[in-house]
């Protein structure tokens, strides 16, 4: 069983990297890009037996995402 955890910045938090990428795309002459948001994902493989959701939640909250500036979302793949 694989869970995918998506992590990205909360609204309104400055993401300097995304800014730099946007700027670069513009410099590459590609004008149609209006916005770019960036994030991470983690595919976590666990055994099939029990329900792992609460564990995955704990991992997401305590490790994968920084809840002060990031949101996370868990989906079962």
């Amino acid at each position: 069983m694989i869970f995918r955890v998506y992590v990205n910045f909360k609204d309104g938090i400055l993401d300097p990297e995304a800014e730099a990428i946007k700027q670069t795309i513009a410099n590459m002459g590609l004008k149609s890009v209006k916005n770019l948001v960036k994030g991470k994902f983690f595919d976590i493989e666990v055994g099939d037996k029990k329900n792992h959701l609460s564990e995955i939640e704990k991992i997401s909250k305590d490790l994968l995402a920084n809840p002060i500036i990031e949101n996370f979302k868990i989906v079962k793949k």
Partner: protein
Amino acid sequence: MLKEKKISIVIFPGSNCDRDLFVALEKCLGTKPEFIWHNCSHIKSTDMILIPGGFSFGDYLRAGIIATKSPAIREVIRFSKKGVPIIGICNGFQILIECGLLEGALIKNSNQLFKCEKVNLKVINNKTIFTKNYKLSEIISLPIAHSQGNYFIKPDKLKKIEDNDQIIFKYSSDFGDVTEKYNPNGSVNNIAGISNKKKNVIGLMPHPERAIENFHNGIDGIKFFKNLKDLI
């Protein structure tokens, strides 16, 4: 009189070893390099190009990648094809890799941390224009300061660059042992510096420009730059 040869240092927003490199070249070779700003789309002439360390464009996305979109890189590639010697140090190495002049990839250090310390390097190839004054297997000591210096290349490609003598420096002990213990960042086979096939482009993670003063932690950088004397 011979026309004075021209050394160019290409700088990007976020480069931060450009001054140090300038000082080192001036001190060791007695010539003043010229600075080329990253958006320069035509370099009229040059006899050697160096790309300094630092954090071009903040090292955002992947170290070196954004810099490869600057016009000056097209010029660097053009001159490299003409056989002009090109040297990338630290972030310069990362840029040369990202723009395809050198093979492989430089990923995050194996322990995830930035690392600033002195390392020993073993000269693996002393037949290039950049290293011919070194003895084979000579040990030199230089500082490193990077977080993405973990050299990666696929096994088949590794074999190719090995067979073609493109590995120039490896991390080692003071006595030349090339083992995991002396690998500061996780690089495949302790690789610290490589060249292209034609051997006119070289990249290395350590900073020779930070080892040129008596008060520095070693002065092995002087020899590195003096090696370049014949090229200009």
